[in-house]
């Protein structure tokens, strides 16, 4: 007979109280995908599951003010399909919605929750790069209080799973600034990428672009935000210069970072090609 138990909770506070108990180990059950796979693989290491799928506090989408800035707060308990169908997000963040819709198949979009994917740091499609270029902030609560953690800081934390409860994802309101989000990717299976790139930039009324941001996901090399290359490309765009020499430098940097194994070489070529294509589509040919 199994020793695993399941507790259904109705509030964030109830969840935090249970997570704080030290005599039993707990894991959160939301969409269930990760937990089911852990059980199947025989590596679920906990005494009980806390089912948070009934916590309504984790399912709202609303604008909030934090330190004088407007953010869109997306409840961590919402499935990706609910996020993609939300009319307000469709109008405020069409690029993100488009990325989400193509990030997996319909059944998994119904199962994956934003909080679940972020808790286990399991990217799907171009979701995490899109959150990275939009500079999403993860709202985490534990019994000590609330923390706001920038997405890239969250993803690069060494610990695979963090204690506490992700309650929401905050997206800075960028709806007034003509944001473009461009997704390019190379598929293996639906939702699983060898490499994917998300670019976004601000386009003004005269079609002049600025503040270009770039993030990628490459299967075994993870999610990266390329701030150094962003800066160089933004300078090139402002000066109306070609970005091809920047991409050559980038290729060399990737070689130094990832090594020269066959897999790394292939992925470097794919990523460089995807970024070049994305830049060409977004800001033109890159030729003077």
């Amino acid at each position: 007979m199994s020793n695993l138990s399941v507790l259904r909770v109705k509030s964030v506070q109830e969840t935090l109280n249970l997570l704080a108990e030290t005599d039993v180990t707990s894991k959160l059950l939301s969409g269930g995908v990760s937990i089911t796979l852990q059980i199947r693989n025989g590596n679920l290491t906990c005494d009980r599951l806390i089912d948070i799928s009934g916590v309504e506090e984790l399912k709202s989408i609303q604008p909030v003010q934090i330190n004088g800035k407007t953010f869109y707060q997306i409840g961590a308990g919402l499935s990706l399909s609910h996020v993609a169908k939300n009319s307000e997000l469709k109008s405020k963040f069409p690029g993100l919605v488009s990325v989400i819709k193509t990030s997996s198949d319909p059944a998994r979009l119904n199962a994956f929750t934003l909080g679940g994917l972020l808790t286990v740091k399991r990217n799907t499609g171009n979701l995490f790069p899109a959150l990275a270029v939009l500079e999403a902030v993860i709202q985490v609560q534990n019994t000590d209080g609330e923390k706001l953690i920038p997405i890239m800081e969250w993803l690069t934390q060494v610990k695979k799973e963090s204690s506490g409860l992700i309650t929401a994802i905050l997206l800075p309101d960028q709806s007034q600034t003509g944001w473009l989000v461009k997704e390019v990717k190379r598929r293996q299976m639906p939702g699983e990428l060898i490499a994917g790139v998300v670019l976004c930039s601000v386009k003004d009324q005269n079609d002049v672009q600025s503040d270009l941001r770039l993030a990628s996901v490459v299967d075994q090399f993870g999610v990266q935000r390329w701030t150094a290359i962003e800066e160089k490309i933004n300078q090139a765009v402002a000066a109306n210069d070609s970005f091809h020499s920047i991409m050559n430098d980038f290729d060399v940097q990737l070689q130094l970072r990832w090594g020269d194994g066959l897999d790394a070489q292939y992925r470097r070529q794919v990523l460089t090609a995807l970024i070049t294509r994305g830049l060409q589509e977004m800001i033109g040919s890159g030729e003077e």
Partner: protein
Amino acid sequence: MKINFNLNGSDVELEISPEQTLLSLLRDKLGLFGAKQGCDVGECGTCSVLINDELRKSCLMLAVQVEGCRVVTIEGVSSPQGEPNDLQQAFLDHGSVQCGFCTPGMVLAGEAILKETLTPTRTQIREGIAGNLCRCTGYQQIVDAIEDTAQQRRTAVEEK
């Protein structure tokens, strides 16, 4: 532990193990073999079911998660007498069934699409069945069947 849910229109109360997947509950405990055990990791879609009208893969969720939900398997789609419904009949008419292993999942993916809209484009249909693999038909006939059923249901709504 005990769970209560609605299965194909009937309320049920069952004793389950917390680790049990919904697929295992359906097949091993309830003898509903329409949901197939294929890849077991959510890639193939043969285990698809509808949970509160949303398509889900029953191999990727625990049975405990359907507490209070409406679950529809392929056995709940046909008429009580076992006659195929309009979508199942369209699958037969269009030659959308060859080996048949993917068919229950495909029909339920089709039902999920038609619950969202009765005017799906062929692209929407293809996106809607993107998580269901078929190695026989090449998908064309499946898309035709769903498109045809959408047309029939649209006509039925318009005539009312």
